[in-house]
């Protein structure tokens, strides 16, 4: 069964029949985590790097921001029996329009925020497909833990 993860949204699951998908990442970032032993995984689609922009909004919807959404993703997977040491982490999105590196950089800042959080918490990224101007859709198969990225007009790429 396909479970759609919307914008500023997250789903975690231990149902092997679930295929989590999040569409059209733009400058947003998709984070897929999976524990192959517990067969627990989750997919987060966050929009913005930092909840200090609007803490009240972050309390309402933590999945909008990297710094509130990423910890939630891990915690909810732990709650279903995943362990940090076993989690495979894959990242996609963070797209940019063309041009310099100073303006319209939400995609880049989204990615930098994730890197900072992972560094602080000793999380390694197993694979990623970030930056550039391509629109990306991301899939996580709960049965196998496999993650794919689809760019329109191109073949599915496994992360």
């Amino acid at each position: 069964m396909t479970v759609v993860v919307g914008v500023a949204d997250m789903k975690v699951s231990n149902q092997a029949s679930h295929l989590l998908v999040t569409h059209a990442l733009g400058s947003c970032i998709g984070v897929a985590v999976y524990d192959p032993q517990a067969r627990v995984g989750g997919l987060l689609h966050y929009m913005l790097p930092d909840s200090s922009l609007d803490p009240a909004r972050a309390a309402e919807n933590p999945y909008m921001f990297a710094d509130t959404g990423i910890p939630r993703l891990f915690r909810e997977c732990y709650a279903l029996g995943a362990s940090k040491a076993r989690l495979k982490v894959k990242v996609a999105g963070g797209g940019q329009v063309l041009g310099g590196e100073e303006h319209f950089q939400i995609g880049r800042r989204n990615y930098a925020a994730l890197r900072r959080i992972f560094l602080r918490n000793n999380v390694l990224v197993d694979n990623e497909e970030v930056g550039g101007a391509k629109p990306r859709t991301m899939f996580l198969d709960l049965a196998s833990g496999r993650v794919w990225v689809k760019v329109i007009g191109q073949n599915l790429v496994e992360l």
Partner: protein
Amino acid sequence: MSLIPQILRSLKHLPPFPVVAQRALTLVNQPEVSIEELVEVVKFDPGITANILRISNSAYFGLRREIHSLHQALLLLGTQELLKIIIASGATRLFANGTPGYFQEHHGLWRHSISCALMADLLARELAATERTTAFTAGLLHDIGKIVLSLYVEQKFSQIMAVVEKRGLPFQQAEKLVLGISHAEVGGEMARIWDFPNRLRLVIHYHHLDRPEAFSDDMVLLIYLADLLVMMFGQDLGNEGLAYDGFPQVLHHFNLRERDLERLLMHFGSSWGEAKVFFGLVGDGHAVQRAHRG
């Protein structure tokens, strides 16, 4: 070989611009619009009142009272808000067909256009621009050139994307290089044929800021920025993704910082779920045909 003659020929068979939207356009920014004038506008499309009531009563507007009539909608939403709904409902026929050169989804262009209209509206509010209805309308119609150019882009898509990738050009310039004309220019032509107000035509023609003229009108810059923000938001992204130029001078012009862009995206994202009620305005063209036959 340039495809321009062929493309211009297909403009000869352009259907007329929907009359309801056209009439509603003439009421935009009028200080006062009477209920009689609005009734005059919507009477050309019997289905439109139902649409207006559905949108007016949706969570997007969050009214506490249920609206049962056009008159009530006018009182509770105000003229300009109601005009936005009428223009969007009236324009749907243009967007009924797929534009596979640009979007995989059958209604991708419609959804992108609605998103851009709502983002332009939000941006106009943020910038304290007075012409929010104009911004909404321009956002809705900025990419109409894609309706006509889709067929050609579909045939040459990989060639156009190769130009984008090898030469680092924005998509509309690659379009122009390969096809001889860009969707923005085709849209400008359509606006001329349909006799749009001059300003709306300029926005459509210059919305990717290819020419210095684009910088002479704030509305062009506003729509350009709304379009970019919608692409960054990502939902209903077209086949070309985010392959358009980001011009820092537009941010400087409006005195916007990166943090302001984040806030705009946050507000847009927060009302997104409710805004999707607008997507439902456009029906399936085939279904309409079936209904007429049956």
